[in-house]
Every structure is written in C-alpha cells, then in structure tokens.
C-alpha cells in the first residue's frame, strides 16, 4: 500500500473519490465517502498486523522480502511480471495471475491504478495536430494495441517445474528509469538468443 501503487489500487478499485476529475479544472475529493471507509476497514487491520506491506514494490526491503518467498499476492499491472518481478525478485516462474477481486456492488474488475500511463502533447509543440494524431494512433489503433508490451498478460501459468513459455511480443512497461528492452533482448527469427547477448527466451507470468 504505497503511494505510487497500492493506495490507488485499493481505494480506486472501490470507487473512493480520492481524485475523481470530471473536467480539466474540476475534481471531486471526498475521503469520507463510504467507498473509502470500507477500504479503511479492510486494509487498516491488515497493515496493523503486518500482513499488508506499506513499502513500494521497488523498495530494497520489499524486494528482499519477496525474494525470500514471503509474497502471497499483490495488485500489479500487466507489465509487472516482465519488468518488476523478473528483474527484481529473482523468483521467475513462481507467480500466476488471477482476476482482480471486486468490491460489493462493482460491475467490473477495475484495479484503480497501475494499469497504464499518460501521453501528453505540449501546447508549445511545433506541430500539435501531428503530435495529437500520433498519440491517438498509439492509444486507439487496434493493431498497435494487439502488439502492446507484455500482452496478452493473462496466459496460463506453466505447470510447476516446467519451462515457462517463450515470450510473447513485448517491449517494455511504462515504469520510468527502467531500460526499455529492445530487439536485442528478444529471440531472433529462429527463436534462439544465439546472436543477441542480452536476450532471454524465458519469461515470467505476470
């Protein structure tokens, strides 16, 4: 339950209006809403008894705990397997995915956060229209979305002890500061890594 990830994941999934913007200049903030209070009732006791960590998932102490096999479950974005667990936790292949739990009355499985990123076009850009068209294409074109990073993210986990499946398409998740894997990280056309030193044919179920 860190500021960057967990807070919005828990409160956001419940529909708590922490930052419910209705326009570029209006926002609803009401932490006394019942949708917030019910989250307090669930995660408060879990934090108090140490079940729920308050550390950032990239915090060194959290990584150490997870690497020690003490992570039971977490709300994470689809890219976290390839770019969070795999490089940091050293428990490749030990995790599977499940549908996002829902709060009472919820009609979908919205996680509230950590599922994507934002694209901005500067008003001072020399070509605002072209930049806007580019962003629209990247975020709405079905061909591009199908080939998006770490998707599909819900493939079945391999049987215990078996070799994980070869990676699907995948370049990088949106976390800042992480080197974005490129072509050199992917198996070549023959499905091997012989010609690409940093490539891996293994992957981690998110």
């Amino acid at each position, binding site marked *: 339950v860190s500021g960057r990830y967990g807070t919005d994941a828990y409160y956001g999934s419940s529909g708590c209006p922490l930052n419910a913007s209705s326009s570029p200049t209006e926002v609803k*903030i009401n932490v*006394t809403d019942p949708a917030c209070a019910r989250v*307090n009732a669930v995660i408060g006791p879990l934090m108090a008894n140490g079940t729920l960590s308050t550390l950032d998932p990239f915090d060194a102490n959290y990584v150490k705990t997870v690497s020690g096999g003490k992570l039971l479950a977490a709300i994470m974005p689809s890219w976290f397997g390839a770019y969070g667990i795999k490089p940091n936790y050293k428990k490749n292949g030990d995790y599977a995915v499940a549908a996002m739990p829902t709060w009472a009355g919820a009609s979908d499985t919205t996680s509230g956060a950590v599922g994507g990123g934002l694209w901005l076009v500067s008003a001072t850009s020399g070509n605002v229209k072209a930049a806007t068209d580019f962003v629209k294409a990247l975020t709405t074109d079905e061909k591009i979305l199908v080939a998006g990073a770490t998707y599909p993210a819900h493939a079945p986990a391999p049987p215990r002890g078996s070799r994980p499946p070869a990676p699907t398409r995948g370049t990088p998740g949106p976390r800042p500061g992480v080197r974005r894997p490129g072509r050199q990280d992917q198996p070549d056309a023959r499905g091997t890594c012989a010609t690409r030193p940093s490539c891996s044919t293994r992957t981690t179920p998110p």
Partner: protein
Amino acid sequence: VIADKGKNIDAALTSFGERITQAAQAAGYTVSK
C-alpha cells in the same frame, strides 16, 4: 501518509484528503465533495 501501519487509518486518510484538496486548489482546480 495513509499508512501509520494502519493503526489510525481513518485519521490518516482524512489528513491525506485535506492535503490533496489543498494541492488541487493550489493547482487551480475547483474541488467538490
């Protein structure tokens, strides 16, 4: 801010709400409840 290890999460969230409200208003947002 939310944490305090969960011991007083209601107060922590109230404080958090006050801070983000102030920040939103300082940024020019119209804030409603």
